[in-house]
């Protein structure tokens, strides 16, 4: 199966055209940039954000996931994110995780049934994380099946091509606003 994967090793180089940088600075300092620009950092501390995007949502969807690649020069962590209330009521950092497939069939707030079984395939779920570690010099993917910023209680559907300002909050209080682009695929 290995031969079907190597094509994508070069992706990091390809998507470098959309690199953003956050400057280290005071807690109130905010860097705003668009997804297609690259801004050099000052102060010796920077986080590069590459290709931030969000999947366009169905009319009835109430949640969405924001993806991007983060790379910090120094050890850092993404602590949270925020979006305008016209986009979503709140956000959380999440990680999709895989567990063995044991069904317990419990219903929140009430009834349970006696039927249960163990699936031979893994179950996928989400867990909220308080931060996403950013090891120095290492690219960290927020991507389908892994870390993502979950937008909760969407104010309206996210459309393809829509540009959403998402403010990222890093350790030590620095923030950075990036433009996240809606995509239909």
């Amino acid at each position, binding site marked *: *199966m290995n031969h*079907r*994967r190597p*094509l*994508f090793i070069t*992706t990091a180089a*390809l*998507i470098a*055209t*959309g690199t953003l940088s956050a400057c280290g600075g005071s807690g109130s300092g905010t860097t705003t940039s668009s*997804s297609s620009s690259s801004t050099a950092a000052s102060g010796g501390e920077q986080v590069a954000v590459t*290709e931030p*995007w969000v*999947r366009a949502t*169905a*009319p*009835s*969807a*109430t949640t*969405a*996931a924001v*993806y991007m*690649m983060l790379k910090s020069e120094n050890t850092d962590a993404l602590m949270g994110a925020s979006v305008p209330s016209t986009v979503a009521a709140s956000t959380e950092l*999440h990680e*999709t995780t*895989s*567990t*063995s*497939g044991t*069904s*317990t*069939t*419990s219903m*929140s*707030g009430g009834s349970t*049934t006696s*039927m*249960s*079984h163990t*699936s*031979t*395939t*893994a*179950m*996928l*779920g*989400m*867990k909220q994380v308080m931060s996403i570690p950013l090891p120095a010099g290492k690219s960290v*993917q927020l*991507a*389908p*099946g*892994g870390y*993502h910023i*979950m*937008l*909760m209680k969407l104010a309206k559907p996210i459309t393809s091509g829509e540009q959403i300002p998402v403010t990222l909050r890093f350790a030590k209080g620095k923030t950075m606003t990036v433009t996240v682009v809606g*995509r*239909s*695929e």
Partner: protein
Amino acid sequence: MTPPNADRSDERRSSRRFVLALLAAAVALGAVPLILLDMTAGNAGTHPRQQLYGFMRRPPLRVGGYSLPAVASDGASHPITFRASARSLLLVYFGYTYCPDICPTTLANLGAALNKLPATQRSRISFAMVTVDPHRDTPVVLNAYLRHFLPRALALRTTNWSALKRVEHVFDASSTIGPRRPGGGYEVTHTAEIYAVDDSGTVREEWVFGVTPSELASDFRWLLGRLQTGTLNDSHSPERTS
């Protein structure tokens, strides 16, 4: 700004660990990864190896004796049996609309895969999503959600918990609904395979999360070709009753 294949490659890299873990679990528990040798169909000389990207179980899952209600937005419903039309495929997925990551990714990839097929093949594939969160996924919510990704999708929904669990069981799927969160709502955990059911109600192939549109489309072509010629090997007789 964005290279054309960047999003897909991101997904592939991120999900590779899932694919490997899920395939390993599947192998350990009796499922057989499908990296089959396809020496037939007249292409042995030029393309002797037909690589499939899903996996097949031995023995295969038999789901044709089971059904769930397909609901319309107005609440009207009719039972759908898990069996495709002649020489066609019924794809089945267990998911929920509050899912921000796995389900939209899967459905978007599935839609992209179907769009890679010629209309004559696409018309031989139908898709049904079983909601594992029927209380939040009302008929209106579920239909609007599915139509966004796949216009002809069937919305399968039951509030009969035993019926849902029975169908999950025959697909070897499972789901759990977690406790209520302080801020409202609850988490749902679920298996995330796509199942390809043939006209005998047999699951012919499954794909774990992370499979790409191109990979799905490739497998769909192979399956449809084999169904068309009646050369999809199966030593088991079809199951017709539950």
